[in-house]
């Protein structure tokens, strides 16, 4: 029993503990500690070759980790993989099916391997999932003749077939046109509203920002960042101030610095920068809803800003900062704790 899970928290869908995979000398995933809660729409980001697909494959048991463990629904995937897979629907990279079978026949074969009964009992379900991905008209078309987008849709249909609790989608929008991308976004939102957990690996950051509530960013196999999307975006918020004269800019900079030192801890950093018209601007790393406060401080000291811009953060900036920052060997990822903190023993998994 020692190898079985040590603790079980039924709010956790996925947790990995120091999950590592090395292919010879190449460490594809290094000491990964992920945590996905039930009901999350979890964005899994990273450049090509960062280890996203390797991680997904380890979670699904397609490849064995070199070290570490992955626990899904409280079950260790090294010991209880079939029971886990019964509750997971996944597409890994571009899904591939049997080219000589039609779309619906492919679903029938997959259903037989997903624990569903054969025969006509599940015909309504085939129709249902084909309807969801809008492939009903092409259900009898041979898979070989499908376009890339249709293949991707069939992959999603196959992932949803057994109505799983956790849906893992690895680049689901590959090959889809803009309308298809929007459909996938709506589908993810719909699945999320049904209480399903979505694990989404994607390069389309704007989509991830719109649908995900939590994200993790990988780079070269290391977890760089993990946390709540809103929190991460809040960290990126800035207040941009432009004064009319250079002397005013310098005074304003000193004033805001003093303001910070006097107790405005919500100001994390103050920088002097230039805008695209080469005018000096003050960049304050602070929540945008504090811009009026900053403006008031300046006004009290007879400094009147020419422009005050609250700047929202974007996942793209967070991503680029994370993946472009110089790598520090053995660095610890910036990980936000969940609001509902886990028991200590779970964290020790």
């Amino acid at each position, binding site marked *: 029993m020692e190898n079985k899970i040590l603790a079980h928290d039924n709010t956790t869908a996925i947790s990995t503990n120091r999950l590592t995979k090395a292919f010879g000398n190449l460490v594809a995933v290094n000491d990964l500690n992920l945590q996905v809660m039930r009901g999350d729409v979890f964005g899994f980001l990273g450049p090509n070759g960062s280890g996203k697909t390797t991680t997904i494959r380890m979670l699904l048991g397609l490849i064995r980790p070199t070290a570490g463990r992955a626990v899904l629904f409280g079950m260790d995937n090294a010991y209880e993989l079939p029971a886990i897979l019964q509750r997971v629907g996944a597409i890994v990279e571009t899904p591939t099916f049997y080219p000589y079978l039609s779309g619906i026949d492919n679903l029938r074969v997959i259903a037989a391997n997903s624990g*569903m009964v054969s025969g006509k009992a599940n015909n309504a379900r085939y129709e249902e999932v084909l309807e969801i991905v809008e492939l009903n008209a092409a259900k009898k078309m041979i898979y070989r003749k499908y376009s890339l987008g249709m293949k991707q849709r069939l992959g999603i249909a196959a992932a949803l077939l057994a109505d799983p609790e956790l849906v893992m989608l690895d680049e689901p929008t590959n090959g889809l046109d803009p309308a298809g991308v929007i459909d996938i976004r709506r589908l993810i939102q719909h699945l999320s509203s049904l209480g399903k957990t979505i694990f989404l690996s994607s390069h389309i950051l704007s989509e991830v920002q719109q649908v995900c509530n939590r994200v993790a960013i990988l780079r070269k196999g290391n977890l760089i960042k993990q946390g709540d999307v809103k929190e991460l975006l809040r960290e990126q918020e800035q207040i941009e101030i432009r004064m009319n004269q250079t002397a005013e800019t310098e005074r304003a900079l000193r004033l805001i610095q003093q303001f910070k030192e006097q107790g405005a801890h919500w100001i994390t950093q103050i920088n002097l920068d230039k805008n695209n018209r080469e005018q000096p601007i003050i960049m304050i790393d602070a929540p945008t809803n504090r811009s009026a406060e900053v403006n008031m401080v300046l006004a009290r000291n007879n400094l009147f800003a020419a422009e005050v811009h609250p700047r929202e953060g974007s996942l793209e900036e967070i991503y680029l900062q994370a993946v472009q920052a110089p790598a520090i060997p053995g660095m610890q990822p910036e990980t936000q704790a969940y609001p509902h903190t886990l028991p200590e023993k779970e964290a020790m998994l």
Partner: protein
Amino acid sequence: MSSIPQPIAEPKEPQFERSQNVVMGKQDFTSVLLRAIGGELYKIWRRPLSKILLLIGIIFVILGFAVISIGALISASSPVESFLPPSCGSSNSVQTPCLNHLPTKQDLANAEQAKQQEVRAAAAALYLPGSLSTAVNILNFIGVILLIILAGTIVGGEYNVGSIRIMLTRGPTRAQFLLAKFGTMLVCSLFSLLVLGLIGIITGALLNLTIGVSVDFKFLTGPWILHSILFLLIAVFSLLLYCGLAICLSTLGKATVAGVAGALIWWFVERILSSALSFFGQTIRGPFGDFLKAVPDYLLFNNIDALLNNQQQYMSGGTAGTLTDIHAILVLIAYLGCFIGIAWWINEARDITN
């Protein structure tokens, strides 16, 4: 107040409910395996390749029986006079009976009897019980080739296409996935034997009708039926062994071609190797020669032939194989164990990447 410590309540797993449209089956090992076999058979049924292979098999069996019937047809259509003994002037042999007068009615009757005997002997492979052996012998050639192609394809195709990623993330374990392939090939071997065997027997019977040899069903006794069943089971087992080889090599090579080419080369080369080793064994002599001579006794086809011949001996009085049943069975089980074991080990240990 009780001092007995209360067990710590385990957090209850939230109930996972699927859509009402999803009808799940039993999840025990056997049910999952049987459904996986069902899925494999469905793929084979819907696949054009399997239909083409079946068609080739049918054509080959019909052609095989047609070729065998040629000798009997020639004999049957020959004039009775051609079965008379040669005239004494043309016969040089003292011992061969010859005719030194014009054929009498008795001579013609004897010639007719000789003709019937020759036709009967030539057509023996076309009607029961001989046609059963003929059908199985044809299947042991073409059936092996076709089933090797099918077995190599159903395993290697998963890697070639990439569908293995989907199949291994649906629930069945890797062992079930592999056993489903073996189970599928067992069903296919049985199906091939029954369908092609039946077609062969019917074809032989129809050809025999044109020849006109009367069929006697006296052979149909209890022991004959028992040996026939054993004979058919051995034939299925032999087909399954070569399928197992193809599955093993396809798994090893992660490709259809590895299984198909590898198994066909093995099937072809072991016959040459057997003859070559026997020849060198006799030439070299001594302990090494004895070793070389003994090696063919452990080759796949020799043991299959031995088992089949041992049954045929009971069925139609043929010659028994040189190897005993127990030797052959043990060797063949060892082969099957190796094929399944190697494929299982590779399958379990392998990372499924691109």
